[in-house]
């Protein structure tokens, strides 16, 4: 049932208005990237991963003990 709900939700989102390639100038701006600054953001994620109990869904945070 949950899978069905997710599928329906995705179908609804996919029915959004089509944006043609020549209409994507703003979307292609570097400031719209995710993450905006990959190197800095990945180090931030590593910092949070070793100092908080949660993990996942945001980006690769590398490995290591990070005991400190």
């Amino acid at each position: 049932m949950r899978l069905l709900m997710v599928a329906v939700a995705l179908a609804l989102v996919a029915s959004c208005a089509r944006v043609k390639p020549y209409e994507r100038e703003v979307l292609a701006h570097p400031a719209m990237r995710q993450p905006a600054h990959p190197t800095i953001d990945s180090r931030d994620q590593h910092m949070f991963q070793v100092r908080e109990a949660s993990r996942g869904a945001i980006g690769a945070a590398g490995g290591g003990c990070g005991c400190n």
Partner: protein
Amino acid sequence: MRLQLITVAAVLLAAGSARAQSVADTERAWNSGLRVYADDDHVTVITPSGGVVAPIGEALVTDVAVAVDVVSAASVDVLTQASPADVDERRVEIDTGVAYAPTPTLGVRGRVIVSHENDYDALRLSAGGRIEVAQRNATIDLAYTLALDSVGSAVDDNFDESRIGHQLTASFTQIVDRQTYLDFVVDAQRSDGYHANPYRLVPIVDPDSPALMSVAEATPELRTSVAGLVRVRHAFDTPRRWFGSAYYRGYIDTWDVVSHTGYAHAITPIGSGVQLGVQARLYWQGAAEFYRATYVDDVPEHRTRDRTLGGMTTVHGAITVEAGWFVGSLGAARFSFHDYPAQAHRSALIVSTGTVVPF
């Protein structure tokens, strides 16, 4: 007319799809960075890093990066557990990957991350793929990561534990309109093996005796978690153009840790190719089921003094400046522990710089 055609061609080449950046967009470049983390718990981490990104032909991109964490610590967490003196250590991380896009709408990738410390080794092997659908208005991305960790001890040569983890991540990105992306991410992880810290001892209090017993930390071997994220990215049509993104992440695991994360980020050009960014992050977490600030009388099967498994709140903010090849960030974080008597708060200052130089 010619200018219009060039503009349209440039937009077609640059815009492409719902994905943030395609293989075809990637330029050959050196990158380097320096990060300094310092907190009032007497922990300083200096991280120099460097790497290179190199397209090979039009469909293949490889990259490799090396980062070194130089850690100097006299944390209350370390000093009260095992080490009578300050700790100095190094962590070396090598991160390399390859991405291949046989068609503009299809891509696969692989990544290897190796991390080495004198008493801890970690290996991450990732593989993933993405496909663009709905006339390139939507992107579906799937990734799998195998995590292998080997835990040793600097004070016990015979100590040897390990952990194996599996991570599945599914992402869906949708172009909503000419100025908006919507992202959905679901992440499931299963980690089996040794999760504790060999240096951390857990005191057991006997109310009838002044003597204090300390035992090794012990956590469940299996940990399974699910995280879900919803993010919106939007370009605002105000007199000064600015770009914003915000997300919410929910997390739950089999140790009964529940957390909520909120994040917002805004970037605006301030002239001459310079961009100013501001970001804020709020994080709240409930304690693991077996976490106690104090264990009394009996030695429970699972026990920890890891403050990161207790209830906690994090507030983080940063300002970022990007100018040409340079990006710099100044941030501050405050970690508040709801039930950790040895330390209620931990405040940190983080300075990061980076350069990306095409060649």
